[in-house]
């Protein structure tokens, strides 16, 4: 029972951006033009995507911090964070289709074949689907060693997400730079751990 409270807090924190967005949607829908600005649809899609990639970065950061700070207990928050990242990105995806593409299947299809930034973002999302599906403890047991292998798909997904952001920028690469640097930092930590493992494995033989 001790660990329930912090988990609940993380859960509520993850819901917080969504609650704020929902509140702004209600205000905008009831005629408050200042709530989501002139183009509420665009604002909704943008906001969901932003929180999606932020939560994805936080999810990866949890593993890094757990390793570097020798706090393996932190790992218990990872699944929930990852699933929330997926939830925001799924809503981002749905909102793009429903609002920006006007629920026009021909337009969605054209986007997915012609627009590089949408191809990058769409593929990133598709890579995350099997990870969400296999996030249960049962799947983890069933897949054994392959589970960890499968879940490395999060790395290409994250990089594709950064590419998606960079390719849709018009003047400013500030967002792409910030998210890209954080992504590289977190991937760099993993490379560092991998090199360390290789070395410690090589030592007894030497």
């Amino acid at each position, binding site marked *: 029972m001790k660990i329930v409270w912090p988990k609940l807090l993380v859960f509520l924190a993850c819901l917080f951006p969504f609650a704020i967005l929902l509140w702004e949607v209600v205000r*905008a829908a009831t005629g408050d033009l200042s709530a989501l600005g002139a183009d*509420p649809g665009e604002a909704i899609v943008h906001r969901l995507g932003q929180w999606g990639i932020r939560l994805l970065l936080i999810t990866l950061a949890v593993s890094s911090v757990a390793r570097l700070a020798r706090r393996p207990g932190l790992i218990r928050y990872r699944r929930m964070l990852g699933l929330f990242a997926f939830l925001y990105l799924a809503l981002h995806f749905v909102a793009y289709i429903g*609002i920006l593409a006007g629920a026009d299947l021909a337009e969605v299809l054209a986007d997915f074949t012609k627009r590089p930034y949408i191809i990058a973002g769409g593929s990133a999302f598709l890579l995350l689907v099997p990870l969400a599906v296999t996030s249960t403890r049962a799947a983890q047991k069933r897949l054994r060693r392959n589970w960890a292998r499968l879940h490395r798909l999060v790395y290409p997904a994250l990089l594709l997400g950064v590419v998606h952001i960079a390719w849709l920028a018009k003047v400013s690469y500030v967002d792409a730079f910030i998210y890209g640097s954080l992504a590289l930092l977190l991937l760099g930590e993993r490379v560092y751990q991998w090199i360390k493992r290789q070395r410690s494995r090589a030592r007894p033989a030497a």
Partner: protein
Amino acid sequence: MTLLIRQPSKIPSSEITPESAYKSRRAFMGTTGALTAGLLGALSMQAHAASELSEILRSRIPAGFGAPDFAEPITPFELASSYNNYYEFGLNKSDPSKYAHQLTTDPWRVEVSGEVAKPGSYTLEDILAPHDFEERVYRLRCVEAWSMVIPWIGFPLGDLLTRFEPTSNAKYVEFTTLFRPEEMRGQRVSGFLTSIDFPYLEGLRIDEAMHPLAILAVGMYGQVLPNQNGAPLRLVVPWKYGFKSIKGIVKIRLTSRRPDTTWNLSAPQEYGFYANVNPKVDHPRWSQARERRISASFFNKKIDTLMFNGYAEEVAHLYQVMNLRQNY
């Protein structure tokens, strides 16, 4: 009616909105963003500074303007004045309405140079004096695939250019936006992560510039142009993507060679010199076939983009011999 041009009419002075009513309307309209807080104070301060230019402008905008009847719904003023691409004031669309009040628009001078018989540095009062203002309701189509319908107040650009007596070598017109980083905070942060340079440059071919639909605007919605919309003087070329309609103009140069333009310099494969609205030629990264019309309704409706933004009948002849796929 797809085109609405309202000429000034003789209005009895009794019908002109009393100033108190006008000010309370302004107070109502200024509810967006940071403007609200200082508005009352700013109004009294403005009264002290006796902003002569805006008084002149106000007195010259006919009272009948600002409530036009147009076939498509007019975009609410609150949105047209709070959703702006004006990178001189920041990268977000909400930045210009937050920070453009820092700009001093009076006094204002426009330098006219190049292939003209009468070059010189003109005060804005000189520039505006002989022109009658008209109300023009135009669609504004942004290259980002959203659009608005805005009632502008201004006068034909061609009428102004004619006054400077262009020479036979004048084939193009180049416009420059004010460069004043002290008052335009976006100009202070250009760096390695941003891709456009200041001052902002735009240009037109002379026949485009002389076309009666191309106007210089000083107002919108029956009032003086808000700073974030390009006060005190901006271009409006309704058949081209919005970035051609340069704001805060301080230089007009007539040239024999095609001028450089900011977006074309930034990404030549994405933004051409002509930038005519064209649903058949996509931006390399997104479709231009449809647009989201910014309106009061919650989800902006997606509508088909029209060739030359719906002004084909008036302007298509300018481009008859051109390949519009190459000259995007």
